[in-house]
């Protein structure tokens, strides 16, 4: 018994060693370095009451779409249409709020505008996924087509119906609609209340300064939490990993590979819609250029978070760290006025390259160097 046991040759690891070999460890260390460096360089301003809120706002935006991009990448596909989908969803929602629902269904409320928009974006996600799996074409090229197509449709629709590619001055729906407030209002007010009670969070007049985080913080936590649970603990999660690792092997074992992929293209469309909805109900504006380049940030953050470009491997926790890192650096210019904002892109490019190399090392280690 127990012959040819290669596993027995593997070194028994301590808990610390195991922790150090986790795929998230790289992005975690980078995140810690950035947090400390930023706190020092900004003289603490980036983590005071308002700094924290503003940083979390952009981190959550990145985090929402990066989660969708990462889960899709784990299943072995890309979605370059995320940014255009954000623009499309924002346009659709704000135009319904301003001009009413399509097909003469009457005036829109925040809920109906959101639901009709979500129905459209999910249908688009389904269409993209179906084209990819049916044609067998690379998702890179199919979604690149939708990147142009959706951005174009967004602009054309704006000009045709609205005569302008922007909408501003919508009423503040948060005041009356609980639903709009859920997407664009404040959350975790208790955190800032507590901070105030403990003697911090004060403005110049000595009153409570910040009331709460942007609602997108909550949505990011929900989306990342659900994605983490599904990936690590459920059958669908196993199917997602199996699909991205070796599609034919998964299919031979009865995994509905095509349904998994189509479902995940719908999930990225959902994430883009949540991004847009939080933006629309927060600012009561929209613009045809919204979400521009976001698809590339989403993919970059997924990779920085340890997701393999080749699929089959990745971690939502790593993507959370990646979103925090990239979000903080993107915002750094507001807290350290002396630096040129373009350094952000220099940093992102550098860390992306480093992450790709690190990920490749991890993949080689797992697959025994192949």
């Amino acid at each position, binding site marked *: 018994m*127990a012959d*040819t046991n290669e596993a027995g040759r593997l070194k028994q690891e301590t808990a610390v060693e195991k922790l150090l070999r986790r795929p998230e460890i790289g992005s975690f260390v980078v995140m810690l370095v950035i947090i400390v460096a930023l706190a020092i360089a900004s003289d603490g301003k980036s983590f005071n009451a308002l700094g924290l809120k503003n940083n979390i706002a952009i981190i959550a935006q990145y985090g929402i779409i990066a989660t969708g991009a990462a889960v899709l990448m784990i299943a072995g596909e890309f979605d370059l249409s995320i940014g255009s989908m954000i623009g499309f969803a924002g346009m659709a929602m704000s135009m319904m709020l301003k001009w009413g629902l399509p097909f003469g269904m009457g005036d829109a409320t925040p809920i109906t505008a959101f639901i009709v928009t979500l129905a459209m974006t999910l249908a688009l996600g389904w269409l993209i996924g179906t084209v990819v799996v049916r044609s067998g074409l690379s998702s890179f090229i199919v979604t690149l087509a939708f990147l142009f197509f959706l951005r174009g449709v967004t602009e054309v629709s704006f000009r045709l119906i609205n005569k302008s590619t922007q909408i501003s001055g919508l009423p503040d729906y948060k005041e009356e609609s609980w639903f709009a407030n859920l997407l664009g209002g404040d959350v975790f007010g208790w955190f800032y209340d507590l901070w105030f009670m403990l003697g911090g969070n004060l403005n110049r007049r000595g009153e409570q300064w910040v009331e709460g985080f942007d609602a997108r913080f909550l949505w990011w936590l929900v989306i990342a939490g659900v994605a983490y649970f599904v990936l690590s603990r459920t059958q669908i999660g196993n199917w997602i990993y*199996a699909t991205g690792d070796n599609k*034919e092997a998964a299919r031979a*074992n*009865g995994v509905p590979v095509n349904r998994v992929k189509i479902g995940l293209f719908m999930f990225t469309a959902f994430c883009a819609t949540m991004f847009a909805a939080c933006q629309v109900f927060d600012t009561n504006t929209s613009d045809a250029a919204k979400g521009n380049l976001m698809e590339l940030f989403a993919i970059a953050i997924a990779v920085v978070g340890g997701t*393999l470009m080749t699929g089959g491997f990745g971690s939502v926790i790593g993507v959370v760290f990646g979103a925090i890192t990239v979000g903080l650096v993107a915002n750094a210019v507001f807290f350290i006025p002396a630096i040129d904002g373009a350094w952000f892109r220099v940093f992102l490019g550098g860390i992306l390259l480093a992450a790709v190399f690190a990920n490749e090392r991890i993949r080689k280690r*797992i*697959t025994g160097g192949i």
Partner: protein
Amino acid sequence: MADPYLRVEGLVKRFGPFTALGGVDLEVFPGEVHCLLGDNGAGKSTLIKTLAGVHEPTEGKIYIEGKSVEFRSPRDASDAGIGTVYQDLAINQLLSVTRNFFMGRELKGPLGTLRMDEMNKIAHDEMLKIGIDFSDPTQAVGTMSGGQRQTLAIARAIYFGAKVLILDEPTSALGQKQQMGVLKTIKKVRARGDIAIIFITHNEIHSRLVGDRFTFLALGQTIGAGTNAEIGDEEMRRLMSGGAEMGDLEQELAAI
């Protein structure tokens, strides 16, 4: 003699004008290893793909326990108890042993959650039964040797109800020691007594070591069949080389 679990009668498979199989007969019995031998292009792959439900036969019949069956998909064949372990093994390297073992057939609790502990235990126990003690089934398959992956694929097929195990050249592309490991695994499965094994190989020695019964294919035809005792070494070599007399081959080679 017991009844064969799987019987194939006059199986013909044509792809357009090309006849891949020209009337093949085959009988496989529980607790026996049936070696399918033949040169490249003899029709071995077409035969097993037909048995696995990938191809539908043009003519001829497949019987399971005496009843005629028709497979329209690989799923039908696997439901009928035919488990095929292909050369590429249908395994995902980055996933853990357990996740591979249960791929597509995961054990679910409420809310679709995986019963991971239970699955780990089953994967470990099933692999131990046929010979490897893989202490940590949460390890990625990428860390396993080729022979161990073979064992994983075999254990998985058996656990999910295979009564006929089709092994497609399991020993090719492996080192000597691992080949022996796979042969031992085959013997262990045979010893259970309830599973029929179809062992496809190029290797005369391997088939001699574990085979109970042989079928030789050449150009889509059965050119010979018999039990281990019936077929002598000389005859075996003749059939392996596609039915040509060794003497003829020697002459041909000498003439060059």
